[in-house]
């Protein structure tokens, strides 16, 4: 395919699941040079399959055709995090100062891989942060917690930003750094972290909040904003009244589905033998009792500790 300069054929190979074959296709497209740029840009932007797109971006990075830079920069807004990550790495291959502002913006991406990719690419280009504000985002991209602890620089914006990261380890590390920095300005963000979904994050947020001067009396309300997994007694009762057994299933009792099936079988046979009126008058009080029981046991379920 290389000898035939079959760009389309090579692009098709990008979507195979064998990583060796995929890598070989990327290198082959890279060797073809700028004649592959336009078809690769087309594939990178418009193909539905993620593997095509990732492979095409890698090949564009190997070709290093400057025409692809604006398109790659545009792809930093792609909804797919792997695409954005691949783009940040690809941009690092271009020796063009125009990529710097885009990579600096990517340091504020929601995804840690994208941020890391942007920081690594910036480092590769010899980037030196122009001011302390940029520097702290650069360190945050590398997750350089030691540098972020340095109280001589203002690291609050990236640290507060990292408190919302989907990765609990990052949230935990950001809280530990904020705790060491002990800045009162971090207090509102730390109160919010008291309601984090993760137990360790909440526990460490308490110490950090204290060190940042949050009054102790504000801790319980912050903690109470954590996600509560307790089941709703009314829903359990309602389900058990309408579909006896499913209320028990809702609160995690394995035998709920069994009661449900027994009820269905009994109801069908009562209908056939005793008729509609008798069936309802017989079953209604039982349903009511089951509903009350489900409501009661759900209400008595212990509150999960913070």
């Amino acid at each position, binding site marked *: 395919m290389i000898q035939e300069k079959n760009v389309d054929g090579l692009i098709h190979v990008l979507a195979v699941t064998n990583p060796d074959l995929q890598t070989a296709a990327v290198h082959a497209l890279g060797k073809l040079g700028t004649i592959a740029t336009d078809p690769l840009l087309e594939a990178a932007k418009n193909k539905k399959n993620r593997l095509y797109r990732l492979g095409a971006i890698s090949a564009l990075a190997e070709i290093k055709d400057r025409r692809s830079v604006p398109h790659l920069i545009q792809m930093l807004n792609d909804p797919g995090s792997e695409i954005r990550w691949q783009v940040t790495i690809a941009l690092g291959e271009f020796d063009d100062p125009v990529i710097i502002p885009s990579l600096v913006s990517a340091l504020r991406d929601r995804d840690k891989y994208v941020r890391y990719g942007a920081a690594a690419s910036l480092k590769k280009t010899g980037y030196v942060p122009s001011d302390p504000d940029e520097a702290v985002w650069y360190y945050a991209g590398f997750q350089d917690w030691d540098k972020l602890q340095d109280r001589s620089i203002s690291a609050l914006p990236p640290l507060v930003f990292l408190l919302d990261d989907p990765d609990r380890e990052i949230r935990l590390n950001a809280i530990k750094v904020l705790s060491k920095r002990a800045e009162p300005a971090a207090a509102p963000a730390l109160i919010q972290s008291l309601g984090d979904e993760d137990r360790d994050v909440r*526990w460490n947020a308490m110490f950090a909040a204290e060190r940042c001067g949050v009054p*102790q*009396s504000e801790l*319980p309300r912050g*903690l*109470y904003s954590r996600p509560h997994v307790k089941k709703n007694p009314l829903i359990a009762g309602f389900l058990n009244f309408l579909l006896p057994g499913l209320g028990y299933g809702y609160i995690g009792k*394995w035998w709920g*589905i069994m009661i449900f099936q027994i009820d269905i079988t009994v109801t069908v046979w009562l209908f056939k033998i005793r008729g509609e009126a008798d069936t309802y008058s017989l079953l209604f009080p039982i349903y009511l009792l089951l509903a009350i029981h489900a409501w009661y046991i759900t209400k008595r379920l212990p509150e999960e*500790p913070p």
Partner: protein
Amino acid sequence: MADLWFLKCANADIDRLKKRSDTYRLVSLLGHSDPVIRSQAADALSTFGDTALPALINALHFGTVSVRLGVIDFLGNNNLPHTGTHLAEIFEHEKVPEVRLAALITLGQSGGTDAEPVLLKGLRDKNRYIRYSAAKALARLNRIPDTLPDLIYFYIACQDWGTIRTMDSDATGPLMDIYSGGDADTRRAILSVLKDTKNKTAKQICQNALQDSDSRLRWNAIGASMNCGISMLQLPRFAAGHKRRGPDPVAAALLNFLFLGLGYNYIGKWWGFPVFMTYMTIIVLAQLMTGPFLPYLVASPITALLAIHTYGWAVRISEQDV
């Protein structure tokens, strides 16, 4: 309905409620999600003095969690009569941990005569936030416990594991008490202390740890157990008694016997439901043709065999949880 009234009330003019002396509605605003409204309501209520007490006490017992937290905060900032008694009662009987924590913190900040017994009790609580806050309040009030057991609980509450390590067998009782019902982090820390101190009186904790539901903790318990005098030969036997997280084999078998397919679904097989639906369809059609009992009679030997199969499968799954 209560929620709708609450939202309507939130937009109302707090001054108007103040003029109408509507303390009950003002108290309900102490639980508002907006801190500014909470603060305005608290300012308005503080002008009523003792006359707001019935509304506050009523909300303390019957209000939502958010209102109860607001009331406790308000009581902490306003010196109203019998506050300590009410807060001690809330700490004793409340089920929501955050409300108990708020009551304890407020009591600790008041430093009154009601505070010390509650704070000492808080040191022995199963909730680490409560233990820590109690210890902190006692330290601030300069009332560090003078009896040895209370002092050990104090160090545990402070998570001062270094000092606990120096206390050897004296610490066993409190450590065992906090271990049972404590959170996984605290249980791990306690095990680490036992591992280092080689405390021979703590065999019971190590035995419990070997049966802990947390697999990381069970792993940590191996080293601690050997240091505490449990022989290596005993370890597998103790560890085998841990509560398995896998499906209950009896439940899986029973479900499959009565409702073929649901047992498979219970042990995590997606195709359990299609099997169940097929089984039920065949049973119902057969019942329409032959009456209610014969199809079940014919099916039961088959479902019994499959129940045994599911039982064995569920046992194998739960065996994997080591």
